[in-house]
């Protein structure tokens, strides 16, 4: 019971923050629905009812769009027709596809955060990791596909790790602030990708755009379901395994202990005989490695070829996500699923109700804002709001 309470405790504020964000989101939908509001002077009651119905429809569409229609799924499973099954479960699998890179990048941010390093360079580490995997595929294309896959993912991971190690090394040795160096290295990474994709070796034949050859010709991350138009690949499984591994590493190993100690209090870590610089470099390399792993799966599993816009801001969304999750691996998985669901569900919402997809970004931003201001959430829900330092100074 006590364990259960301790497990739920950290989730309370994020959950309330999500609720608050959806609440504010519905108010926003209501007041921007000018067509409906036009009737307000003549029929206020009806307008409000219609507004509530509209908001309800929009959120309903979002949920169906993200997770699928349960009755339809049940019916489809009975039907044995792969096409029908695929159509029914497609929203759910798309949510998982969207969540996969977010889990990797979220874990990357969290590992660095845990050791007190603010890695804003996950975006760059992600795309360079994908680039590393791309290059490896084209260099070793003669290898049998299963081996080629392992080599490519390994190459992508190492590329990301190396890219993360650079700012870690600079911080540990020279004190260069990682926020500055990682932001700058994001630009360098983006330019490196662009440069690489302009080379004849990588570029798709006959294309002027910076797009790589189609990697799926040589290798592809295996799909989980053999159904038409279902893109869900084993990247999600690896992502979940990595969440467990990261959790084990942070909380159960001596290296993880050092990382957390250095993250909370560098002075005390030094006093206790730990190498603070070593922790920072290790954390940044691990962080970059996770991002690179995510990039490899994205390019080899979801996209199929390297492009300059492979990452839809995954590295930056990951920062928000890690904040929402309190840097806990399980929380990151859940938060990534939420963000993935918002992304896929938003599509159907837009189609069905005409509410622009931008509302999704609006809600995501609100979630983060409410998480960042736990006191605000506590006071909205009248949980005995008390400042953090109170009670400790008796």
């Amino acid at each position: 019971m006590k364990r259960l309470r301790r497990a739920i405790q950290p989730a309370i504020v994020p959950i309330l923050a999500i609720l608050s964000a959806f609440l504010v989101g519905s108010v926003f939908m209501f007041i921007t629905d000018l067509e409906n509001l036009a009737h307000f002077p003549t029929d206020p009651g009806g307008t409000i009812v219609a507004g509530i119905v509209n908001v309800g429809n929009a959120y309903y569409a979002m949920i169906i769009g993200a997770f699928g229609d349960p009755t339809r799924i049940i019916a489809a499973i009975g039907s044995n027709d792969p096409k029908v099954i695929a159509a029914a479960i497609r929203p759910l699998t798309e949510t998982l596809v969207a969540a996969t890179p977010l889990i990797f990048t979220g874990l990357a941010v969290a590992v660095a955060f845990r050791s007190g390093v603010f890695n804003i360079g996950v975006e760059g580490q992600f795309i360079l990791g994908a680039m590393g995997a791309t290059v490896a595929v084209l260099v070793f294309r003669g290898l049998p596909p299963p081996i080629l896959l392992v080599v490519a993912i390994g190459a992508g991971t190492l590329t990301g790790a190396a890219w993360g190690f650079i700012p870690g090394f600079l911080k540990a040795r020279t004190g260069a602030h990682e926020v500055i160096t990682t932001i700058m290295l994001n630009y360098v990474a983006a330019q490196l990708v662009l440069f690489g994709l302009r080379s004849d070796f990588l570029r798709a034949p006959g294309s002027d755009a910076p797009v790589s050859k189609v990697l799926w010709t040589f290798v592809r991350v295996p799909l989980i379901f053999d159904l038409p138009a279902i893109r869900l690949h084993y990247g999600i499984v690896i992502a979940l395994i990595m969440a467990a591994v990261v959790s084990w590493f942070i909380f159960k190993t001596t290296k993880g202990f050092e990382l957390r100690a250095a993250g909370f209090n560098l002075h005390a870590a030094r006093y206790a005989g730990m190498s603070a610089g070593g922790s920072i470099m290790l954390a940044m390399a691990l962080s970059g490695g996770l991002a690179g792993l995510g990039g490899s799966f994205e390019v080899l599993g979801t996209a199929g070829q390297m492009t300059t816009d492979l990452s839809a801001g995954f590295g930056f969304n990951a920062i928000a996500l890690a904040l929402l999750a309190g840097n806990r691996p399980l929380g990151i998985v859940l938060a990534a699923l939420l963000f993935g669901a918002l992304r896929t569900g938003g599509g159907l919402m837009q189609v069905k109700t005409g509410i622009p997809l931008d509302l999704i970004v609006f809600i995501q931003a609100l979630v983060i804002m409410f998480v960042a201001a736990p006191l605000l959430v506590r006071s909205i829900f009248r949980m005995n709001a008390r400042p953090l330092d109170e009670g400790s100074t008796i």
Partner: protein
Amino acid sequence: MRLELKDITKRFPGVLANDRITITVDKGEVLGLLGENGAGKTTLMNILSGLYRPDSGEILIEGERRTFEDPRQAIAAGIGMVHQHFQLVPVFDVVESVALGSESVTGPLGTFDRKSARKRVVELSEQYGLNVDPDATIEDLPVGVRQRVEILKALYRKSDVLVLDEPSAVLTPAETEELFDIIRGLAEGGTSVIFITHKLGEVLEVADRITVLRRGAVAGTVNPKETTREQLAQLMVGRDVDLIVDKGPSKPGEVVLSLKDVFVMDDRFGMAVKGVTLDVRAGEIVAIAGVQGNGQTELVEAIVGLRTIDSGEMSIGGEAVHRASPRHIADLGVAHIPEDRIRDGLIAPMTISENYILNSYHRQPYSSRGVLDRKEIASHAAQGVQDFDIRTPSIETMAGSLSGGNQQKVVVAREFSRPLKLVVASQPTRGLDVGSIEYIHSQIVAQRDDSGAAILIVSTELDEVLAVGDRIAVMFGGRIIGILEGAEATREAVGLLMGGEG
């Protein structure tokens, strides 16, 4: 102005911080508010200053009932606070700092009327003998003067009641004496003073009346002329307390720590330690006395491997250690109780059991092949909590939520949990209550007698140095300017040396 706090009760989740506390202070009176950490002093003062609202009870000024919704109302009612941690802007000068928040303005643009503010600051400074340069920048001022700026600030706002929260914690003995003179002057001028402390000697010296708090309630109110340190200590702790450290004569053995002409630089590349030569032998306690900032911090950091020695020789247990890492030094059997336990000794957001293994997590039985053994850690930490009487709900409690005394016990429990040759303790009892001080001292003496460890204690408190030191070395200006036998040392002799004379 006569101030009364009547039957004040304040409850926090799980704690009754103030339990029907009643205190009064008359015009021109100095009330000493004495109590251990966690006795409820700070909560009571936060209620008085409008930061918290009491669950029940009332505040009376000149017999009239008042409620403070926020600190501004308390200030308007004439209550001035001087906090333990100063609330000053480092880059402001004295006049700006004092006027901040109550500036008078002139002209159509509302510019700060510096001239008249400066005039009042100078007047107040002279009237109460505060001796503050109105144009000095805060960051250039010594701590003792910054405190006087805080007092000036309260006076500038026309405070009739001045509350000083642990004012002597940051002061040297001489600065403390000056502060007492200022307090007496203020009282003569009709200001009421509430002086919060856990130091017995101070209330006896400066207070007209002493109210003792214990576990959130008033344990008694006494007249300083009719009481003794022992009686006060007993009221405060609730039982008899030994104020003298109980220890026999030392039996010095072989040299464990040897320093020969050691020079150490500080962070700004100035020479902080200028040629220290000192031997500490097994089975003896050497106490280094000195005012803060005379090279003690840098010397200790050099001994434990956190700072490299610029020149000179150092050996521990016969092994020369010139550029050894902190871990290497610790592995030689050296315990280190750092000066600032919150910054260096503990990781506040981590649990007690995690703090307990902070410097031995990489060894058996706490881990093997890089994986922590939670069971072993928990059982050893639980043993440490029991052996060192650490008051905590559980070993999974965050270290930061413990009281200062218990935090220090966690540090001591960790450091003393393995066989030791040398103990280096910096300000081991700073900010602790009488009960904890007594306990930590007895543990240190036990290390000397039972394990025959060599012990080096650095302290700025004369009482502590005299109580525990078998030999007393006084540091001044980066040098050891005198070594006295503990039995022969007097307050006067050590005090003179601390000031660089003698």
